[in-house]
Structures are given as C-alpha cells and as structure tokens.
C-alpha cells in the first residue's frame, strides 16, 4: 500500500520542498519538483504492471470523517481505468516539468511555479486514485485551486487574475452539481464508496424516482445529470466552457498540463468512472452525447478564426473534449478514455510546441505576426506538424484511431447517434482546417514577424526540445495500442485492457466493411480541410480577408466567440451579482432594516424626552438597572410564594 500511497505523496513532498524552501533553493527547487513527479511516474509504471498482472487495489488509508451513518475514507483504488490515468498523468507531468525547467528559466516566481505544478500533480493523482466520491471531489477541487493559482501565476496582470477567478467560479458552478449529485447518491444508497454504490445499482434503491417540475425523473437520471454538471464545468463543455480560453493567461506549460492533457479531462474520467451509473439512464447518456457533439462543433467553429496561437489550441481542446463526451454518451466508454489518452499526448505536444514558438518570438502569440518560421525553428516545426496531423485525425497518427473509434460508435448508436456522427465528421473537417491554418500561418508563407523580434528568433534549448520529441513520438504511436478490428483483428489492446471496468452496451454488430469505408471517408474529410487551409493560407493569401469581408456578420460572430462572454458578463457578473448586490445592500440593509432600527431608536428618543435622565448612556448603569430588575422580579416571586 505504501508504494501506491507514495504515487501522490512524492509530488506532494516536492510541493512542500519547493513551496517552503523555494526562497533559498531558487532555481534548484526544480530538481525537487522533477524528482517528485519522476518518482511518481516510476511507481505508476509499477502499479500499471501490477494491474496488468491482475492485482486490483482498493484500500482505505484512514477514516477521514464519520458522522452518523456517513463514513468517508481516505482510500485508493487502482483498477484498469486508474492505471491508465496514472500513466497519462505522470508521463505528461514529468515531461512538462522538465520542459518547464527551460521555459520558466529566469522567472522571478520560478520556485512558486514548480510548487504549484507539484501540488497540481498531487491533487490530480488523488482525483484519479480516489475510491470514493468525496475524496475524488477533494482532488477535483484541488486541481481547480491549482488551476486558479497557475492561471493567475503572473498575478500583477489583471487579466491573469481575472481569468483565474473566472475559472474557479465557473468550476464551482459545476461543483454545485457534483455536490448535489453526491448527496443524492448518499440519500439513495447510503454510501459514497464507488464499489458499494456500484454494487447497489442492481438493488431497488436505484429504481426510485422523483417528481420534478411535474415530470417524473428516475433517480439514476437525476444523479447522472447532476454529476454531469460537474463534468461540464471541469471539462469545459457547453455552456460552462467559457473559462478555458481565458485560462491561456497562464504560462504555456500550465496550458499543456492542466488545460489540455490532464485536469480538463477529469470530467471525462469522472463520467467514465461512473459508467455503471450513467449507463442505467438512457436520458443521461443521450444528454452527454449531445452536449459533447454540440461542443465539439461549436468550439471548432470559434477556433477557425482566432489569431492567438494558444487560443486556437484552447478551442480545439474544448472541441476534442466534446468528442470524448460524445464517445462516452454513445456508450463507447473505452473509446472516450482512449481519445483522452491520445489527446493528452498530441495536445500536450501542441501546447508545448506553441510555447516553443512563443519562446522563439520573445512572447509573441499573434499568428498574424508570425509566418515563415519553418526553417528557423526546425524541431519545433517538425513536432508541431506531427501534433497537428494527430489532431486532424490523419492515419496513422494517434488521433486517427481514437477519433474514429468514437465516430464509429456514434454511427452505430441509433438515429441520434447518426446525427451526432455527422456532427462529428463535420467537426473533423473544421479541426483539420484550423490546425493547418495554424501551421501555415505560423511556419509557412512570408514572415510577418516584427523586425526587432526577428533577430532573436532561435530554437529552444534541449531541455525543452527533448520533451517535445518524446511527445511527438507518442503522438505518432500511442494510437496503435487501440488498433480497430477493421484494420487488424483482435489487436485493440487498449479496449481489451479497459473492458473489465465498463458495462457493455449493445450497439449492433461489428461490420468491418462499413467501418473501413467510414474511416476512409473521415480521412478524406480531414484531408479536404487541410487542403482548404492550404489554398487559403499558402496559395491565395488574400482570400481570407476577402472572405471575412464578404461574410462579415458570420466572421465577426466567430471572432467574438458568439459574444457568449459578453452575455454572461451582463447577466451574471454585472447583473445578478454586482448590481443586485449593491441594490440589496443600499435598499434592504441600509434603508429598510437599519432604517427600521434607527427609526425605532429615534422614535423612542423623541417620545421619551421626558424620561431622558434615565438614559444616561452609561452601560454600567444599564447593567445595574438590569440586575436590579432581576432582583426585584425574584423578590416579587419570593414574597408572593
């Protein structure tokens, strides 16, 4: 057990060292941090091997709190799903820690940065290892805290600390659902341990239903939907996605680790962990699939026109998370987790590579001020290309396998599934287009770089490029572990490994012929997207401007992200919070309640001018009178008795 407990505790130790002694260690704090995650990585590999060998761990460390019939333990569970997540989290975390050693070099908050990053890794590991809902929630909110701290890492920038608060509060909206979902689970099953809850699902408790606004809703649907609200917040789905693009205010390694590879996938993980619950509610499953499908396309459309290199990738992340939910929602839980895994590698790669671009350009993030970088930063260009091909879903890069498995499952999931499949394919077209728009704007064509910046363009140091190359290797190969039967029969290692964790939902039988055709079709669609990007941004570079002018309305709507932020700001931040708060304060508290209090006091004062002498204002005398009154009352009683 100690070995497994050390998986999260090593990064925590790194956090303590970097956090408490960072002032003295300076940049040496990074050693402690890297050692912490690297150790955790090694132990995770070992845990993975244990699980492969058939050992499933589910043990309580200590009782966290027990009140009445509520018992919450600090305990860990390492099954196939957790084992996969452990590898994803610790691999990415280790590589990104190493990359950060170079990227953050010279920052005055260097040690603080590593401390936060370690704390994040700790909470993320707690999240994936928890054996009950409450402990998972600890990790859940903990990673949210670290996200907040790291988004606002450069706290002197107002936009950064604003973005941090936005992330935390929007996530709290999701957590509201998570909390209520937990309460309902406890009320229904009397426990919050995964194993016990899942075991009770076949019992009568799961068949209850509630009347809600005149409709009868099954308790499993209600629980699933409430939990999914939590997932929507953490994994940035419609309508709670708004915090993620702003989160790009944080340093780029943070975007890679937290806002692409790990934390934002926590919602996907949570739904997958609760697959036994969700799969009991077709309504909830369909909701998950639809929200995912819509988010996938919605975010991709915004990504089409953004000019900030990191924002494009951020919208792409929201979109890809949508694909994952689409997969979960149609019952392809393993496919959703598979996409989570491949995405972690290629999206982590894309963010780190964009960090390398930004590093090369002394902080420039506007793609309109890039171009022609291909020859100047060759390694970065190479890995970026690999990442984009993986993202676009081109065979045989990683994204191809996972995205296709999701699309194939959607295609098999009835009529709704067919519509979602179409959405997904359309999204794939958009994805290919914006990824290569990014590639062409950044690395090809003529340089639009500012002259002063141009002189300093340089490839990043080895400590940054080596993690990039490793990630690029995975972005090519990691998909092969989930080889679809339509290509090589019985070689889906990933799916087979996870099979024991997930319920099997029947969706037609394998039809390898059709599946192959659909694969070819979706690759063709992606290639068409790339081709379109090529003609617009390499061949005919004046075209985008003309298009933007001819379709001004649409273009501006996309550029302004559908104005969702403005609407939210107007309704929630300005209206429902600040204006209402000031109104309530000035009216209810000051005028009505205090007005009444002061009014009564004033009235008494006016009507008692005559008896003023009694009101001397000395508390001692009041107290004396009080005591006297008491004595008189007592005396009265004594006499009357």
């Amino acid at each position, binding site marked *: 057990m100690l070995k497994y407990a050390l998986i999260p505790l090593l990064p925590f130790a790194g956090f303590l060292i970097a956090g408490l002694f960072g002032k003295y260690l300076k940049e040496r704090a990074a050693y402690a941090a890297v050692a912490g995650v690297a150790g955790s990585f090694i132990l995770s590999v070992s845990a993975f091997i244990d699980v492969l060998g058939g050992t499933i761990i589910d043990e309580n460390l200590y009782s966290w709190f027990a*009140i009445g019939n509520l018992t919450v333990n600090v305990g860990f569970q390492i099954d196939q799903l957790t084992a996969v997540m452990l590898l994803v989290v610790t691999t990415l975390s280790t590589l990104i820690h190493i990359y950060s050693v170079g990227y953050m070099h010279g920052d005055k908050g260097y040690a603080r940065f590593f401390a936060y990053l370690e704390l994040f890794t700790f909470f993320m590991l707690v999240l994936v290892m928890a054996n009950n809902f409450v402990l998972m929630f600890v990790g859940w909110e903990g990673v949210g805290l670290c996200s907040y701290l790291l988004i606002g890492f450069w706290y002197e920038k107002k936009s950064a600390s604003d973005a941090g608060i936005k992330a935390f509060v929007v996530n709290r909206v999701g957590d509201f659902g998570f909390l209520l979902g937990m309460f309902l689970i406890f009320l229904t099953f009397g426990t919050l341990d995964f194993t016990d809850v899942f075991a009770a699902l076949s019992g009568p408790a799961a068949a209850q239903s509630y009347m809600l606004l005149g409709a009868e809703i099954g308790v499993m649907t209600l629980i699933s939907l409430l939990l999914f609200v939590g997932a929507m917040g953490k994994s940035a789905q419609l309508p709670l996605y708004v915090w993620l693009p702003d989160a790009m205010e944080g340093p780029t390694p943070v975007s890679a680790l937290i806002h692409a590879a790990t934390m934002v996938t926590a919602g996907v993980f949570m739904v997958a962990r609760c697959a036994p619950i969700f799969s009991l509610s077709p309504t909830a499953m369909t909701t998950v699939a639809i929200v995912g499908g819509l988010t996938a396309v919605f975010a991709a459309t915004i990504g089409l026109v953004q000019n900030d290199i990191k924002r494009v990738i951020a919208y792409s992340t929201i979109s890809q998370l949508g694909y994952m939910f689409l997969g979960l929602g149609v019952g392809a839980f393993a496919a959703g987790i598979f996409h989570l895994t491949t995405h972690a590698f290629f999206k982590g790669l894309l963010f780190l590579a964009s960090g390398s671009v930004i590093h090369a350009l002394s902080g420039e993030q506007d793609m309109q001020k890039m171009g022609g970088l291909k020859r100047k930063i060759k390694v970065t260009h190479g890995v970026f290309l690999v990442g984009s091909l993986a993202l676009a879903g081109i065979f045989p890069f990683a994204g191809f396998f996972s995205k296709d498995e999701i699309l194939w499952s959607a295609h098999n999931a009835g009529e709704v599934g067919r519509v979602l499949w179409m959405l997904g394919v359309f999204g794939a077209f958009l994805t290919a287009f914006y990824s290569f728009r990014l590639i062409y704007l950044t690395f090809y064509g003529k340089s639009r770089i500012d002259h002063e910046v141009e002189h300093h363009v340089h490839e990043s140091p080895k400590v940054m490029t080596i993690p990039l190359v490793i990630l690029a290797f995975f972005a090519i190969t990691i998909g092969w572990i989930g080889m679809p039967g339509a290509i090589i029969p019985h070689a889906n290692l990933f799916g087979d490994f996870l099979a024991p964790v997930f319920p099997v939902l029947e969706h037609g039988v394998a039809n390898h012929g059709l599946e192959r055709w659909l694969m070819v079709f979706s690759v063709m669609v992606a290639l068409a997207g790339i081709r379109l990007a090529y003609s617009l941004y390499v061949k005919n570079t004046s075209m985008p401007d003309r298009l933007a002018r001819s379709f001004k309305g649409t273009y501006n709507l996309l550029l302004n992200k559908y104005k969702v932020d403005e609407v939210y700001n107007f309704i929630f931040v300005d209206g429902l919070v600040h204006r209402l*708060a000031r109104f309530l304060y000035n009216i209810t508290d000051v005028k009505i309640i205090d007005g009444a209090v002061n009014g009564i006091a004033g009235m008494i004062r006016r009507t008692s001018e005559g008896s003023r002498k009694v009101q001397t204002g000395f508390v001692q005398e009041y107290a004396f009178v009080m005591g006297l009154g008491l004595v008189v009352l007592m005396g009265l009683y004594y006499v009357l008795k």
Partner: protein
Amino acid sequence: MLELIPYTEQIDYPLLTLLIAVPVLGAAILLFIRNAALARTVALAFSLVELALCAPLLMHFNPSIPHMQFGESYEWIKAWNIHYKLGVDGISVLFVALSALLTTISIMVSWKAITDRVREFMIALLFLEAGMIGVFMALDMFLFYIFWEAMLIPMYLLIGVWGGPNRLYAAVKFFLYTLVGSVLMLIGILAVYFYAGGTFDVLTLMNFKYSYTFQLWVFASFFLAFAVKVPMFPFHTWLPDAHVEAPTAGSIILAGILLKMGAYGFLRFSLPFFPDASIAWTPAIMILSVIAIIYGAYMAFAQTDFKKLIAYSSVSHMGFVTLGIFALNSQGVAGGLIQMINHGVSTGALFLLVGVIYERTHTRMIADYGGIAAKVPVYATILMIITLSSIGLPGTNGFVGEFAILLGAFKFQKVYAVIAALGVILGAGYMLWLYQRVAFGKITNPHNEALKDMNYREIAAVLPLVALVFYIGLYPNPTFTIMNASVENLIAHVHAKAQVVPAVAQAISTAVGN
C-alpha cells in the same frame, strides 16, 4: 436523560471553576499594575495558563458518553433554588478551548496595536474570557444569564473605548440589539422557572414537559435573543458596524466566540427544552438560514470595507450553521457544530490578518490595497490559506463543515440544501475577488511600497489557527468524536420528547431515516 458527572470522578481538582477563576484572578492582579508592558505580559501569562488548563480538560474528557462532565454543583441562593452548577459535554467543551485560544491570540495581536489604557484593555479581555467560558459551562439558567450579561459589558467597552471613529454608534447599537434579545430571554427564563415549579436547573428543565402553546411562546423569546447573537437575517445589521469599529481583538472574539453563543443557545436550550416548538419553527428558521447564506454573500459583494466584507461573510457562514442545526440529523448538527469551530478559526484568522495590515496602513478600504503579494509574501500566503478555508476548499476545515451541513440539510429537505449550495459558489466569488483586490495586481497605492511582512509575533499568533485549518480539514474525526455522543443524544432527545405534533415529528424521523 443527561447526568452530571462530578469532577472527582475524572480529575483531582475543580477544573471548571479554575477555568473561570484564572482569568478573573488575572484581571484582579492587573488592577494593581500600572506599567503597560507588564500588564501585557501578565495578561498573556494568565491567558496561557488558561489555555494550558484546556489540555487536561480535553484529555480527561470522556467522548463516549453524552453526559455533563467535570461537574460541580453548589447551592448558591437557596431561597430561589439557584445553584452554582457547571459541567461540559461534547457540545460545549470545544468552545471552552476555542475561547481560551482566541483570547490568547487576541492578547498577542493587541501587543502593539493597543497603546492607550493597556491595563484596562487587558482586564476587559480577561473578564470577557471568564464570561464566555462561563456561558459554555453554566448548567443553571440564572448562572447562565449572569455570564451571558457579564460578557456583554467588556465587549461593549472594547468597542466603545478602543474602537474606531464611529465607535459609540456601533457600541450602542451592539448593546441595544443584544440587550433587547437578553431581556426577552430573561422573560423566557423566568417563564420556564415558574412553569417548571421553581427550578433553574438546566438538566431538570430539559426533561420537563411543557405545553405546546407555552413552548411556542417561550421558544420565540429565546429565539430572538439567540438570533440576534448568531446573527440571523434580519437581525444582523449590528454586526458589520460592531466589527468595523471594534479593535482587532474585539473582532476576533466577536466573530470567533460571541457569534457562537446564539447557535449554542439553540443547541443547549431551545432544542432540548422545546422540541415541539423547535420542530414547528423549523421551516421558518430554515428559510431564514438560507436567506442569510445567500443574502450575506450578496452583501459581501457590495462592500468596499475589508472588515465589513468579512462581517457579511460571517452572516452567510452562520446561516450554514443554523441550517445544519435545525436539519436535526447527525450530519446537520455535527456539521453545524464543527462549522461553528471552523468559523471561529477562519474568521478569527481573517480579522487577525486585517488587523495586521491595518496596523501598517491605517486603512480598511479594499481599494487602498492591491498588489501587496509582491511585498508581503508570507502575509499573502497565509491570507490565501485562510481564504481557501473560508470558501470551504476540501482539505481545509471549511469543507468538512459545509459538506456535512449541506448533506444534513439535503436529507432533511432537498430544496434548502440546493439553494444553500448556491452560497458555496457565491462564497468563492466574493472571497477570491477580495483576495484579488488586496493581493494581486500592481501596487497602485504608494503607501504600500514599503509595506513590511508579518513579524514573528504576528506569525506566532496566526499559526495555531492555520494549523487548525488543516488539522480539522484533514483529520476531523477526533473533533467529531468529541461531539458525537452529545449530538446523537440531543437528536434522540428531541425526537423522543416531541409529541404534540407527531405528524411533523414523524415526517422528520422519516427524513432522518437511518
């Protein structure tokens, strides 16, 4: 049926009397000390002795029984059947310790802040401590009332003499508000006394059966006294003024202990004495609690004054406490109790931190800060930890309390928990926004350029509270264990004694379920 276990069965000396006597003795000795520096030292020494006495209190406390422990009972005024009767159970014992801790901390933070009439200040603080501790230990209504009123006067003086510019308005407002409540409570006490045939004995009164109508009326009179103290909406407007004007020590004690008296009153008297009335009143109290949670949070958003913001956040947090208590199930009541401790720890620490920065800048306006994280990293870190505790981040004490309360409320009646949980979102909003305006950004106020970080005395003062944030957050079981037996007994007692409105009681015990 609760019993009084004589102290002789647990310890060699009358510990509870000692706990009252030590601060009084300290105050008496201070009368003869003219030197301010010496006065500080003597006061600190006595508060430390008091704190040390809490060690045997907690160590010899038997958490497995719900009874009143370390009991002492002497006849005092025979004619009126008044006793000097003390005892602590799982509901009160932690507050005795918290009072001792916060008093010590208050003396430490007043070291440099109070330069005028130091001796008198320290006397007031020690008297206050004796009064507070007495309130939590008294098992005779008359004795309780004396402590309750005795506590009021030093607090009034702390605000009125050592407070800010508008201190008289605030002090009088505080005094009148609580006095109105006290007088109503006195009437209630006398009513109970006569009704029960002339006894002030709390344990006897707990088991006495009162008619339903009587319960409704007397519950109301107690309720007002306690609701003002909590403070519940709409009796809360004295609190922001009192906090703003009070010196740091006054705010710490006020938020940390005095606000707990109301909720303690509910637990010690209202619920066990008048179970039927409590249940009948429950919907109203739940609604007021939910309003307090949301409304207090909203008020916090509208504030420009650091202390006022925290004062309103207290209204919101105490709303959680009353919500939990009146859910009347294990999680609700235990959650409410631990949240009372948590609020004392976190809000006490917040007021302490405001005091630390106020001493340097002499402004409480949030707009006068901004960007200080770069200048005072230790301060900024501790403020962040306490902020997180206040917004109930898991791993800190705040989470355990809020989680238990919301779960309890959810079991009782889902809609209250749903609305109250919205307060969790708002709480994150106003606290993080406060933190941003204070610590983040660039320094805009040139006075803050030369800001000095916390010194060792200040760190030492706040450190126990930071430790408690994590101790209760990570390992709350020992704390829950202390209160458990008494909480379960209280709930069982209320449900067993409630008869007059069986339908409601039935509904509740169904809601409580297992």
